[in-house]
């Protein structure tokens, strides 16, 4: 029997510990803001180097190297630099940032102030989703506490460096998580993502100024990189996949929740069975979405074969897949936002996809025709497979709609909404055909108006 993988809690270290509270006194008693005090005495360029050395990759979804993102910031323009914390946390299956905000807000604020100093930002915003009213209040209170102690605001820790943090609430639109949509929203407009090029945030971001947008968990990690040094940090995890990762497990497991591990230190099987207590009694694993709802679904009874980035051959069962950015990509999906959704053998895959498609149809911002129309049609087709009058061709039609979205849109939502349909239909084709057949038989023409066959 394999031993239960050990959690390695860096970000979640204090969270849920007995007696740990979110106020600044408790944070200070646990060594809080010591890293910031050290950081502001250092050279900002050296600090950015540390982040590069650490190999820290973004935890918001794309896994982009944080050091490189900061390096792209246009410092020659002379315009003010902004830091934005992406606390929109709306990717279905993801629920880690909310825990950090509610239970350890000062860790985020310290991480942010370390980051603003490193990139010499003039001002920072936390863009928090509208459905976190309590989270927004908690952050505002924490910022106020930190300001009183001179960790935020003017002349931080007695230096010449000044920087404010403001909390900005969204209002229920998922697309505000996309960084350029977020910036538009912060400018007081509809969250229409911007076209890249030319609108890379590092050059033309908020108010057309250089802007770094980073996820909550990424910014918390910055503090720990500065604490231990880039080289030490890079020893955690795997090369190219450094540090820890918070995994959020939901769906059909006995112990859903958030867990923090060294990246790549455990497999999907260990996560599901050893950490999360396995599936409900008598149920079998059917499928897993490993990185938020837009990640491609993985089927339980399949072999995953190929070559890793390093050129090693692999032949994995679903349970064998190591949980790191590169391995999940090699298996045909992605680590994404760390949201692992587990489905057992009672799950109707058409229903599951119908649910996901309803989400994306609701959340498309509507700028690009392939995404706006495609997401709507994917929803319509899955809905009629479930409760209307489908046709057998619908299975292929569904896939062909999805195939025409990805790569033809302004932002990555296009891919995000196409991947579920593409992967569900590919992996569970039989189930989709059986569903369409059953529905056709049950909704035979005699029981339905003749016109209903037409769209």
């Amino acid at each position, binding site marked *: 029997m394999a031993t239960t993988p050990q959690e390695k809690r860096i970000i979640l270290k204090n969270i849920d510990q007995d007696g740990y509270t979110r106020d600044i006194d408790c944070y200070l008693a646990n060594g809080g803001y010591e890293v910031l005090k050290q950081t502001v005495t250092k050279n900002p360029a050296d600090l950015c180097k540390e982040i590069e050395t650490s190999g820290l990759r973004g935890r918001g979804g794309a896994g982009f190297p944080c050091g490189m993102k900061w390096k792209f910031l246009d410092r020659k323009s002379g315009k003010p630099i902004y830091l934005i914390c992406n606390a929109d946390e709306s990717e279905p299956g993801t*629920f880690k940032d909310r825990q950090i905000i509610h239970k350890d807000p000062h860790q985020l604020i310290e991480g942010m102030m370390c980051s603003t100093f490193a990139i010499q930002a003039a001002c920072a915003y936390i863009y928090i989703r*509208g459905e976190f009213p309590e989270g927004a209040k908690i952050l505002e209170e924490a910022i106020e506490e930190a300001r009183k102690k001179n960790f935020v605001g003017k002349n931080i820790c007695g230096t010449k460096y000044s920087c404010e943090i403001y909390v900005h*609430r969204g*209002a229920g639109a998922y697309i505000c998580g996309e960084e350029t949509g977020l910036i538009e929203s*912060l400018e*007081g407009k509809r969250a229409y993502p911007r076209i890249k090029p030319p609108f890379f945030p590092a050059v033309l971001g908020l108010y057309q100024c250089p802007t770094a947008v980073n996820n909550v968990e990424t910014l918390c990690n910055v503090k720990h990189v500065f604490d231990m040094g880039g080289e030490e940090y890079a020893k955690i995890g795997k090369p190219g996949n450094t540090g820890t990762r918070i995994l959020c497990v939901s769906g059909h497991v006995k112990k859903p929740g958030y867990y923090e591990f060294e990246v790549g230190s455990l497999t999907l099987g260990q996560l599901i069975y050893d950490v999360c207590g396995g599936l409900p009694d008598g149920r079998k694993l059917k499928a897993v979405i490993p990185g938020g*709802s837009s990640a491609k679904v993985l089927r339980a009874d399949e072999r995953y074969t190929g070559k890793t980035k390093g050129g090693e051959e692999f032949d994995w069962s679903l349970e064998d897949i190591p949980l790191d950015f590169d391995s999940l990509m090699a298996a045909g999906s992605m680590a994404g936002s760390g949201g692992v959704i587990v489905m057992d053998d009672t799950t109707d895959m058409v229903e599951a996809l119908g649910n996901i498609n309803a989400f994306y149809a609701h959340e498309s911002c509507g700028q690009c025709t392939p995404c706006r129309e495609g997401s709507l049609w994917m929803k319509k087709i899955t809905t009629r497979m479930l409760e209307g009058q489908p046709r057998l061709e619908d299975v292929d039609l569904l896939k062909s709609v999805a195939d025409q979205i990805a790569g033809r849109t302004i932002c990555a939502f296009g891919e995000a909404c196409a991947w579920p349909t593409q992967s569900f239909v590919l992996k569970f084709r039989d189930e989709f055909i059986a569903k369409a057949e059953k529905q056709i038989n049950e909704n035979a023409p005699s029981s339905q108006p003749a016109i209903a066959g037409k769209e």
Partner: protein
Amino acid sequence: MSDTQTETEEFSLSSETLAKIDEVITHYPEKRSATLPLLHLVQEEKGYISRPAMEWIADKLGLTPINVYELVTFYPMFREKPVGRRHVRVCRTLSCALVGSHKTCKVLQDKLGCELDGVSEDGEFSIEYAECLAGCGTGPVLMVDDDFYENIDEAKAAELAERLKTEKKD
């Protein structure tokens, strides 16, 4: 038209909200950025965003009313009509659906006497679906106004409905 005009004349905000509005505008180098915060503040006080409210906000920020209106129609949390005194939002997205959020929602509809997207006859309750509320590990999750509730299965939904009904204002 005359309707709108009388409403415009009547549109006013508490001094507390006005103070918050003036403060929040200072957070941004460009006033327009304060549109979402102002919409939130107005909705918190009034319960919804009326046409006169949009005009008032536009005026305050030096925008045209369409700049405000287009946000109200884009962002799902802003509403142009009042909802119930207690507003319930049940997560309908996958992780919650896998553990029965639709049943939770049905129980609440029955017990609180309102349809989905509707308001109960006494104006007390309203229910809508929300997309993933970032509590997927403790589903089904829902919000009642600003409060978050986790692990609400059918039995707990029935209890919650009873409690909300006893908290009813007369």
